[in-house]
């Protein structure tokens, strides 16, 4: 039977303003997890009932550990940020379907935006061929070393130009004349939508990892939907991000918002 597990927090450190990297000792999840899957983290505060979905950033199957990188954006993530090494946290996972890794592609383009970047780290570890990682941030980049360690080329765009290219990640892709056989991406919906348009024009298949507010995280409540259509069809369905996703093909997604 599946169950919520109590995981030891091996590390929980600030890696960028308001952004933490938490390492959990949780063999069971580490063993099963795949790139692009997520976990439910549960708050201790009784007033906060719902789990917080957080993508798995790195998986260490040998040590039985996973790394989560999360931003403090509200009450729940604030609580997580205050957890000290040696304490524990309730966690459920791995949840959702990860990226559909295609090892046959020679040129992989990775597109990440802000807090959408973390799940791409584990992904890159499993790609064969060249990997170009394009990341967009408001002002400060993160996780660059993690990507470079794996041997990927990293290209940064920031809105204010503090690091790397000044502009958004789509402009950076165009500016660099990026070419590739496949795109894997995660980030804010407007960014994904824009890049999906570019991908379509350039005939590059693209996978997007979506976010939506969730209640159960396991497919029972039908809370976390996005509009998905069969390729080239008009009529769409509300599919569950938690169970049918979070990764979809960009040409399945109805980009109307």
């Amino acid at each position, binding site marked *: *039977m*599946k*169950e*919520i597990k109590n995981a030891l927090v091996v590390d929980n450190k600030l890696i960028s303003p308001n952004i933490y990297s938490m390492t959990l000792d949780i063999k069971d999840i580490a063993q099963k997890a795949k790139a692009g899957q997520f976990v439910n983290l*549960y708050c201790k505060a*009784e*007033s*906060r*009932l*719902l*789990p917080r979905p957080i993508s798995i950033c790195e998986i260490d199957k040998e040590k039985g550990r996973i790394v989560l990188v999360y931003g403090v954006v509200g009450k729940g993530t604030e609580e997580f940020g205050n957890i000290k090494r040696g304490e524990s946290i309730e966690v*459920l996972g791995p949840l959702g379907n990860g990226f559909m890794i295609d090892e046959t592609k020679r040129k992989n383009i990775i597109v990440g935006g802000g807090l959408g970047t973390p799940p791409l780290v584990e992904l890159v570890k499993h790609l064969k061929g060249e990997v170009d990682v394009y990341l967009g941030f408001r002002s400060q980049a993160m996780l660059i070393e993690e990507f470079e360690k794996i041997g990927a080329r990293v290209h940064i765009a920031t809105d204010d130009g503090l690091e790397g290219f000044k502009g958004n990640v789509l402009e950076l892709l165009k500016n660099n004349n990026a070419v590739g056989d496949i795109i894997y991406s995660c980030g804010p919906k407007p960014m994904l939508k824009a890049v999906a348009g570019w991908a379509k024009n350039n005939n590059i298949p693209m996978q997007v990892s979506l976010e*939506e*507010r*969730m*209640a*159960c*995280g*396991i*497919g*029972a*409540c*039908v*809370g*976390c*939907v*996005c509009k998905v259509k069969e390729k080239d069809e008009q009529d769409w*369905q*509300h599919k569950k991000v938690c*169970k049918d996703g979070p990764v979809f093909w960009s040409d399945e997604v109805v980009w109307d918002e």
Partner: protein
Amino acid sequence: MNKENLNLKVDIAGVELKNPITTASGTFGSGREYGEFIDLNQLGAVTVKGVSSIPWKGNPAPRIAETYGGMLNSVGLQNPGVEEFIKNDIPFLRQYDTKIIVNVAGKSIPEYCEVVERLSSADIDLIELNISCPNVKEGGVTFGTDVKMAHKVTKEVKRYAKQPLIVKLSPNVTDITEIARAVVEGGADAISLINTLLGMAIDIHKRKPILANVVGGFSGPAIKPVALRMVYQVAKAVSVPIIGMGGIATGEDAIEFLLAGAKAVAVGTANFRNPRASIDVLEGIKEYMKLYGIKSLDEIRAII
């Protein structure tokens, strides 16, 4: 009788549940997902998500918001329609030794009747009529907030129901007993309550409602005092069995509802925080019975 010699059986309109625990419609899917966390055989019944005559797409996302001790949802009764339900979910649930309660949604009386007629020939145990759906014909007022409409829809649907009919009440009314009496007169064999309160939450940074639908159904531990009060009032007003729900997360919560007059209880939002919640509630009830030497729930039901 289980090994501790506790009698947990309850009879809901002629259907015997092995214990008083069911799930709240819409929070438990059709049992598949939570079936990976708990043994569904242990539940008195599984109440499945609302089904309508044809597939419904439901409301746009975001559909979920968290509030202090509770949550809002605006799922909008997304479901694949009654045919798909009968084909996929009944065979799955029938593998287990638990009763099946099917929650029925509709936007007009003929639509409700159509679903119920279709379900009448299906292998299910009880029908739960969700009268909190917006009544499109009458301009969006829900059936459940108007005495006459509540009576009428119950009466019409009853003609098509082969299984006993539970009517599920909305708490967003001035006088819940009035509605309860109306549906009993209309032929309800049992009543379940409460459905969600109507609530709202705002994202102060984006300066817009969190839910795309602006308002949504409010559930979870926060609403328990309202649910309990209404179960108490309805238990005094009518004599059909009551399935109580609204914020139940522990055995103690469930005991409160039984004392207030509920015959069975449903666990809803609590599943999202704790996938084992329904079983934990059942265990909690048993502990309470053992603590006080209670052999049958009849000893404490509605004694308040």
